[in-house]
């Protein structure tokens, strides 16, 4: 097992949100490298190590994925459904991070195997709080699955 901080994959198409989440990560002093992809297809490519993401040193398999639902090309739910069928990486913990709190989105996400569902708050302070909690919970307390033998 590597000693380096574990990678987190952020799937988010809104450039503002990316900047704000990155800033929240900085302010929360999370050392985990945050890799960003901006649409569903790229998320699938990154997770399967295809194309430009073939180099697992530059683009390591994430130990946590933060997934927006409303994405260009492939929706977050589609990415989630695909991931849960992929042997080898299907155990990657997925935290949905979206602005929709519609019942059907929440229910569908859990049905497809999301590990957690967070609604992006409008206030930055709340976002910062959320990111801090996220780091503590998923990167420190949470027991990781074995991603190599799935």
């Amino acid at each position, binding site marked *: 097992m590597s000693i380096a901080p574990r990678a987190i994959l952020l799937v988010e198409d*809104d450039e*503002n*949100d990316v*900047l*704000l989440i990155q*800033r929240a990560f900085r302010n929360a002093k999370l050392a985990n490298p945050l890799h960003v992809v901006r649409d569903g297809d790229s998320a699938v490519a990154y997770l399967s190590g295809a194309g430009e993401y073939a180099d697992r040193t530059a683009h390591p398999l994430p130990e946590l994925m933060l997934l927006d*639902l*409303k994405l260009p090309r492939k929706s977050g739910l589609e990415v989630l459904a695909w991931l849960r069928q992929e042997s080898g990486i299907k155990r990657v913990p997925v935290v949905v991070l*979206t*602005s*929709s*709190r*519609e019942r059907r989105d929440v229910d569908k996400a859990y049905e497809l195997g999301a590990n957690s569902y967070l609604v*992006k*708050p*409008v*206030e*930055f*302070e709340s*976002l910062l709080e959320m990111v801090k909690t996220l780091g503590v919970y998923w990167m420190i307390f949470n027991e990781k699955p074995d991603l190599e033998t799935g």
Partner: protein
Amino acid sequence: MARPSPLPPRIRIGFGLALVLVVGIVSLTIYTTRASIVDRDWVSHTRQVMIDLQATLAGLNQAKADASAFLLTGDSAAKTWYSEDVARTRLDFDALREATRDNPAQTARLDSLATVLSARFAVLNRAIVRRDLKGAESAVLAGVARGMIASAYAVEDSLLRIRASRSEASRTTSLFVLGTLVVLVLGLLVAVYLLTARDIRGRQALERELERRAADLEAALAELESFSYTVSHDLRAPLRAMDGFSRALLEDYAGQLDATGVDYARRIVAAAARMDGLIQDLLAYSRAGRDEFTLSSVSLDDALAEAARQVGSGAELVVAGPLGMALAHPRALVQVLANLLSNAAKFVAPGTPPRVTVSAERRDGKVRLWVEDNGIGIAPEHRERVFRVFERLHGQEAYPGTGIGLAIVRRVMGRMGGTTGVESAPGSGSRFWIECQEGDTSP
């Protein structure tokens, strides 16, 4: 309670008439059959009378023949035959009189014939006793008897013709009436069928129209759903950017901003927060109109406790419990109570510690929950306004809020078949109430 017929009046009248006609046809058939049996009986009766007349005439002739044979030959057997002929003729004649008793003219005629017959047999008897062949001849009496029988026969014959033709005529009339009735019934049934078919076509058209409207409604609802999805997802993203980057300016570039710059950035943050509040409230209100509320028995005491926990206002809460059970959707009821509680605790005059009193009142299977506050009260002309969306009576500075809480209360209560209202006067607090069906009180 009698259920009204689903058929329109014209179809019902048509069926009723057809039924009456069928009953008429059956009655007429029974009547006609009986009448024709009576007619046939009369015809055969007349025929029997004619046969009896012929038998009487034959008996008379036979008696004369047998008497002559005895007088010619002296054969005693012929004498015996003669006696039998007389007895048989008398029997036949008695039957004849019995059969024509209903006809006075025939009876009178037969009375005369009886006299003539008796006279004729007396002549023959005397001739046999005297053994006088010549004395047996009595052309006059025989002729009279024959003539009488012939005229009685002619009367019966004409009666037979009349009775036969009358029976025929009545049969023809009956058949004609029956035929007419059958045609009428068939016509009526066809008319009723056509009316029913038209009625069903009308109903089918109505049904299609209803289906079309239901589909339209469903489409409108789906559109509304996608609209609120857009609102919840897309409209909030720019707000997040406004808030986030204003804060980034305030925190990361604080040294480069003067007091006015800091104030402006803070105003952006506040405006974004306010807009977010409005969007959230609007979505909550829209959800209250769309969600399915399955009703069950809910403890008002439990719901109130949960609502008070959610609101967590510093208000003093007095509950005149137990409040009992209500027929409601548990989560929606808690939301309604939470909105009422926070509303009650909010609108107090500055410096007054808020106090909320909750009590219940049961009447006619309904339960009314009162939420009473010690707040600033509402003027009568504003009482209905407070239940409208985004309707506010006070400025943001005095009492912050979007003005959606009571609108949601009214909408949710309406969706659960309940009602809402308020009694209040400025300065003396408000008494808000919600009312719904009482729940099952048995545990």
